């Protein structure tokens, strides 16, 4: 067997390994029902903040715990424990992606991604006070 063949085989093997590895490491977008029926697995759960329920952040007790209620895209509501500091501008979020797993009655999120409306939205011009005259 030629060296180039060995290299080719190794290369293909690693490439397949990378594909398999990537797919097996990939998470799944899920709703709360799925996440709570598989509490041992980590999921990405997409949803919205329930603004009618309180959000609690008491840094004097634990700076790394922030709790709130989220509605997933099916409207299922769960309490969420985010094990990080409260994100700046949390209340403005339009959509939330949580990364974490279910534990008992709460969803314990390790990571949070937020989409704020203004971030992507195209603004329209408003009348502003006249420019300083030159």
């Amino acid at each position: 067997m030629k060296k180039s063949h060995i290299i080719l085989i190794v290369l293909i093997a690693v490439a397949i390994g990378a594909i398999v590895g990537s797919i097996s490491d990939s998470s799944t977008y899920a709703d709360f029902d799925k996440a709570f029926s598989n509490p041992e697995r980590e999921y990405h759960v997409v949803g919205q903040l329930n603004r009618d329920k309180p959000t609690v952040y008491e840094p004097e007790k634990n700076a790394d715990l922030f709790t709130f209620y989220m509605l997933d895209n099916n409207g299922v509501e769960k309490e969420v424990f985010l094990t990080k500091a409260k994100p700046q501008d949390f209340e403005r979020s339009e959509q939330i992606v949580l990364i974490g797993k279910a534990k008992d009655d709460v969803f314990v999120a390790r990571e949070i991604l937020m989409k704020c409306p203004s971030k992507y939205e195209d603004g329209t011009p408003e009348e502003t006070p006249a420019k300083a005259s030159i």
Partner: protein
Amino acid sequence: MEIQYLNEHLWVGQVGNVFVILSLMAALVATISFFIAQSTKDVSWENIGVQSFRVHTLAVFTVIGLLFFMLANHYFEYHWVWYHTSSTMPIRYLLSAFWEGQEGSFLLWTFWHVVIGNVLIYTAKNWRPSVMTVLSSVQFFLASMILGIYIIDFKIGSNPFTQLLREHPDFANLPMFANANYLETIDGRGLNPLLQNYWMTIHPPITFLGYALTVVPFAYAIAALWRKDYRGWFKPALPWAYFGVAIFGGGIIMGGAWAYEALSFGGFWAWDPVENASLVPWLTLVGGAHLIMISKNKGSSLLAAFALIILSFILVLYSTFLTRSGVLGETSVHAFTDLGMSGQLLIYLLFYLVLAIALVVWRYKDLPKSKQEDHLWSREFWMFVGSLIFMISSFQIAFTTSIPVINKVFGTNMAPPTDPIAHYNSWQLPFAVLLLIVMGFTLFLKYKKNEFAPFFKKIFIELASSLLLTGVVGVLLKLQNPFYLLMLFASTFTVLGNLSYINSVLKGKIKKAGAAVAHVGFGMLMLGALVSMSSSDTISSNTSGVDVSQLGDDFSNNENILLLEGDTLPMGGYYVTYQGREKEGIYVRFKVDYLKKTENGYQPQFGLKPFVQLNDRMGNVPEPDTKHFLTRDIYTHVTYATLDPPKTQDEGFKELKVETLAVGDTAYATNAIMVLDNIFRGTGGKELGLSESDIAITARIKVFDFNTKTHFLQPTFVLKDSSYIVPVPAENESLGLRVSFERINTENGKIDLKIEESKAAKRDFVIMKAVIYPYINLLWLGAILTVIGILFSVYTRIKTSKA
């Protein structure tokens, strides 16, 4: 009736649009002329091509010039100007504003291509018509990106000369446009404050020059296949390819530096999709450049060289598609919005992909094959292996980053890995280890056959000393992860091996040292990355003294600290104190001082001012502040702060709550935790003016504040003459806390404790994270050395080829 608007400068847009069309047409004429010139060897066609490219150059420069003119004069009648600037924007952000949007970044890209094209016109000699055909065709596509016309329903390009009120669909019929003099009342949105940063002035042009440089080796490769001159392109393409490696790499590391300085994730690389998108083509370019060198010197690896060089350019297009099409939307924090041009980008990408594959397949039989195998112990063999490692590393990153694209294409519902950093590291770390080991010894091998024994003798000392150093440093840094140790060994070996190569083989002949210097730099970069990240120490973790582990294992990831204004807390060998905030424009800066305890009390060492930028466009953006020392950095980031500081004028106490407690029970106040330690028959009756018949019961309460100090409060409950009750409260002034013993339940021994807090006690606070990154300067120094090393070897190569 049509309104006659006042004070508009519509001529700029009209002139601009003429030049937009001209640049597109000139690029098309240049493409066709160069194509015919190459096919017919007719010099007059080549001259037309050159002239057309000059017209194209002029048109592009004019468009850019007009746009800067519009920006500088705040012509808000143009949507693009209105969108990216405001009349109050400082002039130094003019450049950032120019390339904030897609139109500007495509123009920046076009600009570099134009510059490169004009250099090629003078240097490409007999390659000129073929190479310029490819480049001019790319320019045709890029020029169409700012066209802004509709063909049926398909939008082609986004035009920066679009008028705000007449042509932009979102703004038609707004009431303000009933005013003929609307320009008097309007101001621009302004540059996104996040980009009002000096990094945004230098990082994009460098990165885009890197992007642009991939087109040159690509054009040469396509031209080579076209002309059936499979070897002649190595020499002219090689310096361009390495120049691209240096500039593109420099752009990426600048992005890392910007992230490290200004973004809050902590660290210089987060495997974010946008970062990955730029890293992937760079990796293939590095592989491709080395393969060209092997092919040039030895004649093997021809097909691989073509593949990687072509792939680098295609991947630059793919990377643009990924970041600009909005497909990454849910996975990345800084993906861009879709301006409706993703279809166009895709066509552009597929055109070159299909063209390149077709050419390679067509010419495959014709490609010269090397007759004999590379010898195992030869420079070309290990350079080839190294290039393949670059390729496979790039493939792995590209695949995982493309998960959202795979979902779109195959209708799957995969989410990116929940812990991307761990995922990528688990693959890239082994690749890096292999690569660095190969890099450590390959230069010691000559091209063609080497005997193993003398070669091994040359690298033995470096191998042994790297092993020794790994042991020592590994113990010092307490590295236990075997992969980290391997990486430590491999990067040390690269550094030592290449240093020794410069010293012993080149004997200090600095002219030839470019490659070795670049390899030393790359080894240092990896070493710095490994040490600074693996031994980073989050010093802000759990110093609060409040035990939160009772909440379960999931709550152990304590990395934030609560700092009340004026308090001094121990943290990582320092004492840290929050001195309050200052507001300056849209910036709220938090003053954090680091102190050392000495005999004369606390001595300030340095102060940092992490801040929050009040950004109504992106949401409020926190930015860390970092103290740089030679051997380590202290990164300090405010993760949370109330943006309106609490008022502190109030006086007196307000009741917080009444708690019923047994001995051992805990009660919480806002800034303290109290445990009922004991209840005992009070003493000190005299001071309270008690007589024999009175009963005094004292509660001893242990109070923990968040400075980990323990205080005691002893409120007393007095039963006077067995009939009426007099509670004697206890106060702690520094905590602003007052507790009163209100009642005792004789049956179960529980007491009622009233907790009051001083109204002035609600002090300002920040939640802060602080991390020490040791030896991160190795990384920056390594990056600079790498770039200098490559540029130097490019320089000597050009110089010797001219001589």
